[in-house]
């Protein structure tokens, strides 16, 4: 692992002038570069002589030397070897700073959340990131910092819609088809279910990724997707009090909405004109005279009703064609977002007590001017009153709040339809209204002035409608460890978490939402003209809150005993976990914040809608939820290392939970692993000095995956009362008595190696995975139950294999140094068995974002309709029975009947990259350091968005390729964009959207980040009492360097905006 201290070059300080003395004792002092503390016990040898010595407790050593030039070599475990040349005599003591060794393979403990295992004795596949590595990237989300620097972890921007997936990354590919897909997050020994954004990245000391079965099976039934163990900073015993201060500023560019492939205003209006002429809007105009129409259609309507002249109409239409909503939107709605982060940490320790106290404050504003802030306070204390007893205490408190800002671009619609040519402000910047639901013709006269203003002004409305979120999270833990014998200790740990969150959406009387609701229910007496308000004239408050509490209790026995020329380490223990969440939400009318006012409304009776006259109930009411999850587990992990060479490990765990509807007997699921490690360099026959580390690992075991939403019984859920005001319930899960849990077996073979001085080091892991009893959707005869045409059962098996190569090299060492870090992940997972009808594989034809259970195909893959270009009339042609065809229904039918075997379909390949990784080059000179991260993803396809006339006519969303559409015979030779047909043929559109013509290769290389930092010289700083000062700047989302597709698309963000370039400036200061 890279750390900032290691990227600094050797600093040798020779002070004073040379004076001639003979046979004087020469003395020097060894200090650690990192914290200026003395380094004791270092080996010092004099070149060309047999003299050797060791540094004492103060870091001092001495030789008696004659005048002359000498060279000494300093060696100490944990520090880089150092060669110093100097002349004797010296007038002052020589001070030598030792930089810390890369923590790659030396003396590192990997934390599993249950125990710390010395890395050299670990058999499993772990990836550990220390604080320095995590700080090469910026941002408020700790897990996002893993991207690009962590072997075995893949980030995927596309998968955020899946409810089983809240974190957008996976460990070693996917292990489940339809179950939960998130890795388990462990924070300081216990699973963490709170919001990941609560954890301040500055509080994190290290992160360990548990990848294979031996590493993660200790987490049992929840380890199937890998485990991410987060360890926070703590004070250490016998450490001087130190202060760490960090501060940073993150700024981004505004989003450039003009990069979105949208149809032009001019083209859009031409389409509206055609639709108007064909009578597309007549039904709305006649039947819903109040309904909103787009500005151009209003002009056409005025012209048709002869309210304006042809010339006026043309002039107004022309003006609209010159308008682009993105101009005003960018000018009046967007701002450059920023985030500020400040952090201070005090830590230190005496012989009996160690403490850490930190405080952090984050604050910023989003692009939509939405403010947010967060405070973290953390306190840890470790107390060792007696030699054999240690008590750990920890408290972590988070308070965050944020507010909504200005409206998003895609909410600015006319009658639910996107319109590209709206004006949001006039030339002088005065806000303009848009017809959100109703047209001005109607709202300006409705109620003869007795109603509230019914207009919606986007630039004003958000000032009267705000949503505030607040979150309080408290974590407290206590641990007691009693050493009973030198090799035996017992510990008990307890953690309590309470996360309280709430949101308040306040729609003031001035907001459109409130005015609309009040107007809708206003009654004006036809006889007296009196106005009565069913919904009181006032604001509306939508409020919700939830509380999550979790108790964890663990008891564990630890063993660490020398036995028959080896060491036996192990744990055995049990734990209980209980988590409860309660929530409530409600709607309140007549709300006023100051002074606080509420009014009662009648939710039980229906009242006439002002517009339609039909009766309806006032929406609202309150709802409550409560969930409880309990887990009981027993676990053990044992490892025996013989002669420091051979390690054998084994683990087992049983889990039970209150998984609803399953008999208690079936709730227990034992999972196990075994592993072996062989440190070849410790063998007596091993004499290769150039290869100082060579270790083989092999493991096998099982991980589980639980989905608490699946049950074997029909599940009934109560919801709000029915219109009859009676309690009502629905069954939302079909009974399936044969349900089992998912299970993944994994074999991992790894080798760790390093050449002398770690010039080249790294590891290679090869693994294979096989999942069985995976949940998957299967079509069934829904005559039995109509709510879904699929039911989820244990239907599939999957096979996956992969390779992880992690290589680090020191290309140039010295004053100027150059280090490289290369990572390659290869993962290929295919469905090996699936029980479902053949036609089901038809879903391969899609966007590649749904998992396709076609046997032998990758879990995520993509296929298309075959493409035979446009015909002479601009119709897209597919292939049916071997011939070009425009019978889209028949092609679609062939696909649903025959699935992947259909002759109308072509298979492309993966829709997730199978080869990913990055190359990090770090250059340093003196205190300067420059780091570049180049990421790559290879071997996949993606579906680009394209033009759909159905969507254009219906929702107003059109693709910019509209300009390139077929317009006249001969165009078919130049373009693949189908001709406009009205009315739209939805089969024709969906054929084109899913055809070969809209698939692109995803392979690309991007510049992930550039990090530039400067560390001030410790000597310089030492004079000011500062241990370390580091300033840095960091740029991310720097764009694509190379892509396979010729359309200039970002395969990670097809059709949506790539995240804007982001810059960070910061400083770290240690006292």
């Amino acid at each position, binding site marked *: 692992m890279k750390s900032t201290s290691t990227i600094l070059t050797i600093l040798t300080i020779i002070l004073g002038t040379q004076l001639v003395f003979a046979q004087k004792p020469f003395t020097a002092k060894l200090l650690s570069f990192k914290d200026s503390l003395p380094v004791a016990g270092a080996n010092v040898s004099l070149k060309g002589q047999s003299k050797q010595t060791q540094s004492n407790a103060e870091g001092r050593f001495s030789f008696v030397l004659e005048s002359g030039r000498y060279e000494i070599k300093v060696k100490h475990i944990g520090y880089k070897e150092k060669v110093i040349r100097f002349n004797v005599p010296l007038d002052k003591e020589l001070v030598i700073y030792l930089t810390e060794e890369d923590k790659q393979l030396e003396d590192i403990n990997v934390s599993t959340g249950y125990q710390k295992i010395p890395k050299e004795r670990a058999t499993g596949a772990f990836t550990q990131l220390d604080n320095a590595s995590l700080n090469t990237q910026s941002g408020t989300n700790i897990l996002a910092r893993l991207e690009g620097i962590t072997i075995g972890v893949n980030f995927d921007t596309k998968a955020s819609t899946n409810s089983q997936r809240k974190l957008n990354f996976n460990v070693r590919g996917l292990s489940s088809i339809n179950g939960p897909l998130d890795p388990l997050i462990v924070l300081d020994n216990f699973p963490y279910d709170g919001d990941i954004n609560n954890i301040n990245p500055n509080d994190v000391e290290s992160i360990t990724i548990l990848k294979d079965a031996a590493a993660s099976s200790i987490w049992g039934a929840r380890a199937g997707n890998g485990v991410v163990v987060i360890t926070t900073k703590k004070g250490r015993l016998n450490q001087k009090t130190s202060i760490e201060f960090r501060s940073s500023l993150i700024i981004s560019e505004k989003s450039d909405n003009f990069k979105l492939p949208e149809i032009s205003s001019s083209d859009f209006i031409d389409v509206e004109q055609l639709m108007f002429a*064909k*009578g*597309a809007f*007549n*039904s709305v105009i006649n*039947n819903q005279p109040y309904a909103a129409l787009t500005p151009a259609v209003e002009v056409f309507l005025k012209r048709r009703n002869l309210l304006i002249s042809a010339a006026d109409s043309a002039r107004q239409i022309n003006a609209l064609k010159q308008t682009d909503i993105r101009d005003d939107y960018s000018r009046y709605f967007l701002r450059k977002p920023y985030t500020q982060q400040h952090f201070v940490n005090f830590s230190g320790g005496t012989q009996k007590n160690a403490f850490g106290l930190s405080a952090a404050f984050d604050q910023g504003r989003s692009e939509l001017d939405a403010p947010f802030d967060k405070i973290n306070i953390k306190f840890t204390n470790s107390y060792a009153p007696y030699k054999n007893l240690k008590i750990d205490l920890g408290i972590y408190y988070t308070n965050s709040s944020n507010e909504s800002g200005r409206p998003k671009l895609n909410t600015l619609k006319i009658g639910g339809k996107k319109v590209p040519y709206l004006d949001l402000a006039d030339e002088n910047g005065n806000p303009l209204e848009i017809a959100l639901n109703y047209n001005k013709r109607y709202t300006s006269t409705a109620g003869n002035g007795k109603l509230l203003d019914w207009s919606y002004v986007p630039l004003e409305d958000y000032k009267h409608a705000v949503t505030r979120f607040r979150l309080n999270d408290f974590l407290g833990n206590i641990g007691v460890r009693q050493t*009973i*014998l030198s090799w*035996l200790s*017992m510990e008990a740990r307890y953690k309590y978490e309470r996360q309280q969150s709430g949101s308040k959406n306040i729609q003031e009387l001035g907001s459109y939402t409130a005015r609309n609701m009040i107007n809708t229910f206003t009654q004006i007496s036809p006889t007296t003209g009196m106005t009565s308000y069913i919904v009181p004239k006032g604001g509306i408050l939508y409020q919700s809150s939830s509380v999550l509490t979790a108790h964890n209790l663990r*008891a564990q*026995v630890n063993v660490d005993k020398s036995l028959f020329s080896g060491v036996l380490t192990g744990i055995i*223990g*049990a734990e*209980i976990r*209980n988590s409860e969440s309660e929530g409530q939400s409600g709607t309140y009318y007549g709300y006023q914040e100051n002074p606080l006012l509420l009014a009662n409304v009648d939710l039980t009776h*229906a009242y006439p*809608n002002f517009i*339609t*006259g*039909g*009766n*309806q109930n006032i929406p609202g009411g309150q709802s*409550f*939820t*409560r969930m*409880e999850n*309990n887990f*009981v587990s027993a676990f053990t992990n044992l490892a025996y290392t013989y002669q420091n060479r051979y390690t054998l490990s084994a683990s087992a765990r049983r889990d*039970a939970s*209150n998984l*609803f509807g399953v008999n*208690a007997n079936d709730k227990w699921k034992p999972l196990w692993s075994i592993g072996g490690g062989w440190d070849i360099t410790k063998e007596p026959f091993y004499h290769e000095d150039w290869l100082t580390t060579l270790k083989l690992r092999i493991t096998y075991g099982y991980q589980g995956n639980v989905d608490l939403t699946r049950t074997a019984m029909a*599940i*009934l859920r*109560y919801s709000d009362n*029915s*219109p*009859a005001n*009676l*309690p*009502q*319930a*629905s*069954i939302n899960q079909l*009974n399936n008595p044969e349900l089992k849990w998912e299970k993944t077996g994994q074999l991992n073979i790894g080798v760790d190696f390093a050449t002398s001085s770690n010039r080249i080091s790294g590891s290679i892991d090869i693994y294979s995975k096989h999942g069985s009893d995976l949940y998957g959707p299967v*079509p*069934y*005869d*829904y*005559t*039995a*139950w*109509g709510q879904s*045409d699929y*039911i989820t059962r244990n239907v599939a098996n999957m096979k996956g294999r992969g390779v992880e190569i992690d290589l680090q090299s020191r290309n140039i060492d010295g004053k100027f140094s150059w280090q490289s870090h290369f990572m390659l992940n290869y993962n290929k997972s295919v469905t090996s068995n699936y029980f479902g*009808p053949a036609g089901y594989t038809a879903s391969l034809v899609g966007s590649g974002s749904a998992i396709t259970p076609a046997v032998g195909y990758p879990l995520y893959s993509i296929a298309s309709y075959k493409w035979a270009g446009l015909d002479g009339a601009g119709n897209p042609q597919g292939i049916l029975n071997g011939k070009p065809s425009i019978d889209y229904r028949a092609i679609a*039918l062939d696909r*649903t009947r025959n699935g992947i075997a259909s002759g109308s379909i072509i298979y492309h390949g993966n829709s997730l990259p199978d080869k990913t990784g990055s190359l990090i080059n770090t250059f340093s000179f003196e205190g300067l350091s420059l780091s570049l991260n180049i990421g790559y993803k290879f071997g996949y396809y993606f579906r680009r968005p394209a033009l759909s006339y159905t969507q254009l006519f219906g929702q107003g969303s059109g693709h910019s390729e509209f300009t390139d559409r077929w317009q006249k015979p001969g165009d078919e030779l130049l373009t693949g964009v189908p001709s406009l047909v009205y009315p739209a043929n*939805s089969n024709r559109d969906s054929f084109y959207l899913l055809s070969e013509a809209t698939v692109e290769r995803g392979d690309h290389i991007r510049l992930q980040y550039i990090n530039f930092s400067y560390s001030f010289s410790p000597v310089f700083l030492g004079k000011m009492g500062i241990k370390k000062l580091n300033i840095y700047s960091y740029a991310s989302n720097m764009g694509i360097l190379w892509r396979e597709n010729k359309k200039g698309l970002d395969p990670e963000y097809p059709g949506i905006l790539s995240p804007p370039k982001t810059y960070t400036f910061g400083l770290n200061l240690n006292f």
Partner: protein
Amino acid sequence: MPKNHRLKEIIQSTFVGLLIVICLINNLSCKKLLDAKPSFDITTPSTPQDLQALLDNSLTMNSRTPGYDEASADDYFLTPENFAILNLRAQDAYLWKPNINEFANDWSKAAEVIYNSNICLEAIETVDGNGTDAAQLNNIKGSALFFRAMSWLKLLWTHAQAYNPHSSNSNMGIILRQGSDFNVPSTRASVEECYSKLISDLNIAAPLLPDNPQHVLRPSKAAAYALMARAYLSMGDYPNALLNANRCLNIKSNLIDYNTIDIATNAPFQSYNPEVIFHSDISAYSYFNISPLYASVDSSLYQNYDPNDLRKSIYFARSGKYQLFKGTYLSRALGSNALFTGIATDEVILIKAECLARANQTEEAMTALNTLLKKRWKNTVPYTALTAADKEEALSIILKERRKELLFRGLRWIDIKRLNLAGANIILKRKLNGEEYTLQPNAEKFALPLPNDIVILSGVAQNPGW
């Protein structure tokens, strides 16, 4: 500290520690934890309250009436513009063309009602009825039977030929699922089996149900009789239809005087109004053709209303050149274009009138009809009672009024089928963009096709002609 004392302490603390661990591992102590409900608002259907709540889920049980039959019938037509806006399923239904009609569809909506009913019927046998009065348990059982029968009847009207006593044993009916287990394969029962099963269920249900329900979203005795009257009428069993219509009207026979209705408004009627015996509606369309937003009322039908007939102005609103239907028995919220498909007293009176006429009780038949029509007549103009010289004339008047009163209620399709079987010779025609499509009386296509995926997944036979 003496050495043996220290050893004792070690042994003690080790023992206590292990005891804690063993205690934790032993799942006996954890049984309570493991048996906790994950969420307090979910449960397996086990108490009478659960079952009643399932049946009170009005969105599933009352608002999912299939509309394929109505979309195939002739009370409406589509302008070419509106035809163009509609999806393929709706377009195909309009022109009686085969369609894949895969999930989600009307079939699945009906299946949900049937599944919920089956769950209740299974659970009611084992439910812990302690502390529950018999009336509540009876209501659950009766309601479940009623809901299931109502869905079956609709599917039967849609997907099977009209009941013909000569071929009802060989004609294919629908799938009569009587349990919740999805592993039981689907098979199609004969038309005869279907009608006799649903009628026998209704006969069991009626005595279990209260005369008048707590709310018209719930089934009642009146509703069960009315549904039986509907079923018998569609079978051509007029004496039984009459018997049940009378049983229903003895409980409930309220009529709304249309003079009290605001003519001008867009949504003249309220939901659950005094005429409604049992409420159901189409709120989520599979076939948008019949949504009042798109469907134009058949022009010759509209011409049939007398200017003094209030229905002419209450039921219809002008939209461009044509009329749209606004006379549905629903309070309509903004944007809602749902259609009432439940049972109201006007329908039962019309059943009674028709059956009386068919039984040669012409005068009684016309009296029943006049009772209804008087309430539809403008009170500023004297109402002249309709008369008929004979059975045929009475029948002709009553059937005409039936169509005028009950349009867009999901009744027309089966009326065409049963009347054509008796020789009415109603030919269905659609004109679109210069082309004419027709459906001849008693054509095979009157049994509308099953969804394609159901045929594939269950292996049941598709209807002939599709």
